[in-house]
């Protein structure tokens, strides 16, 4: 019921449901928008993995039909669904309920806009990020974790200094002698005494 087969979205474009032809969103997306029949529940496709369901103020006021549509989409599709909802003075009262359903129960993304103009601007930004994602240019997303290897030495030293009675000097001595925190935890009190003296050795051992 969602879509027939997989959708191929041309680079930097959006495929839009026929029903939005002539609307304000469509006008503002002009040049980026391609209409297609039979998109079913989906309003816009950003990529072959991500699509948008647009809930208007009128949908909200009309009742629960849009909820059935969202649930049907969620059950039928493995696409990542972004729900954009028109949050106006009139529809504001419904927002918390919708958010609970969409984000907490269906596990989808929900973004509020004030009108169709804002929706089109948001879609343009989403498209630009979706393009970057497809081109594997993920480094440009400021919120994606870049895994750069960090030296563990300073952190290991910090951790050993948390043992009562152990400052920087003793921590260094201990690590040079025993190598790792794991080994340090497995040495006998006699071996500790050889490095730090009796009192501190006792403290470390009982810690």
């Amino acid at each position: 019921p969602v879509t027939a087969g997989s959708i191929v979205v041309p680079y930097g474009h959006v495929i839009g449901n026929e029903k939005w032809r002539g609307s304000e969103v469509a006008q503002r997306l002009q040049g980026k928008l391609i209409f297609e029949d039979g998109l079913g529940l989906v309003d816009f496709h950003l990529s072959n993995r991500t699509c948008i369901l647009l809930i208007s103020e009128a949908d909200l006021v009309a009742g629960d039909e849009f909820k059935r549509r969202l649930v049907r989409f969620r059950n039928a599709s493995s696409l990542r669904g972004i729900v954009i909802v028109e949050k106006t003075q009139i529809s504001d009262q419904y927002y918390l309920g919708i958010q609970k359903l969409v984000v907490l129960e269906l596990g989808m993304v929900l973004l509020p806009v004030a009108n169709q103009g804002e929706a089109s601007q948001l879609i343009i930004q989403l498209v630009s990020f979706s393009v970057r994602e497809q081109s594997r240019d993920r480094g440009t997303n400021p919120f994606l974790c870049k895994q750069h290897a960090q030296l563990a030495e300073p952190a290991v030293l910090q951790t050993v200094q948390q043992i009562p009675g152990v400052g920087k000097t003793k921590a260094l001595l201990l690590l040079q002698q025993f190598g790792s925190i794991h080994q340090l935890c497995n040495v006998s009190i006699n071996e500790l005494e050889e490095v730090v003296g009796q009192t501190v050795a006792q403290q470390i051992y009982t810690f």
Partner: protein
Amino acid sequence: ERIPGPSLAGISRGPVDQGPSLCVLADSREICSGPEVISCLRAEHGLRVQVCPLGSSDYIVSNRLAVDRLLQSELQSPGNRNRLSQRLRRLQGSFERICVIVETDRVRPGETSRFFQRTQHYDGVLSALVQAGIRILFSSRQEETAALLKDLALVEHRKGAAIQVPTEPEGHRRDILNLYLSIPNLSYGAALNLCHSFGSVAAVANSSVPALAEGARLSRPQAEELHRFLHHDFDLQLLPQPLPAKGK
């Protein structure tokens, strides 16, 4: 992913009376910046709120979910971009799931309701958050934020990820907690779990990756990272600044 089971409404009626109450950790700075969130969580929703120096995030609602509370104006201004991205990237290092609650700025007395001018930058930030897999919730005031935090804690509880260990270790255990907290990319919740699940630091150091994952309620990669850290062979040469020579 999909959340099966009964609807939230059924549970939220009386979470307080059923067994131990839900627990949320709040960062100490939230006492100043979100006092109504904290008092609302306690008074209205009956949650156990433990205020502690989290540093990384504003709230921790389960063993794997951190929540940051952001004001709408913070997302509006490009000046905040670096600070925000650094903060969220650090969170991604220690948590499986991250959620931000975007809260409408409060209107100060004497000020007429501020007109929110949506910028391209704002839409860009939202898009980047979506793409990074960070959950976004919107709230219009602190009381609503509290309700959202409660909902998140409930959902996480239903998925078996709730914080269920004592959150205030004392004495010797306090020292041990501080040691765990110094481990990079280990969240406050995971450190508490380590304190609770293992008798000593040595027991932690001698545990296998699966045992660490189980005891600290960590994901497999996070447990592997912890295991690597504990077994890391220290090399003095790799310390960033040269240390003064020590007479021995």
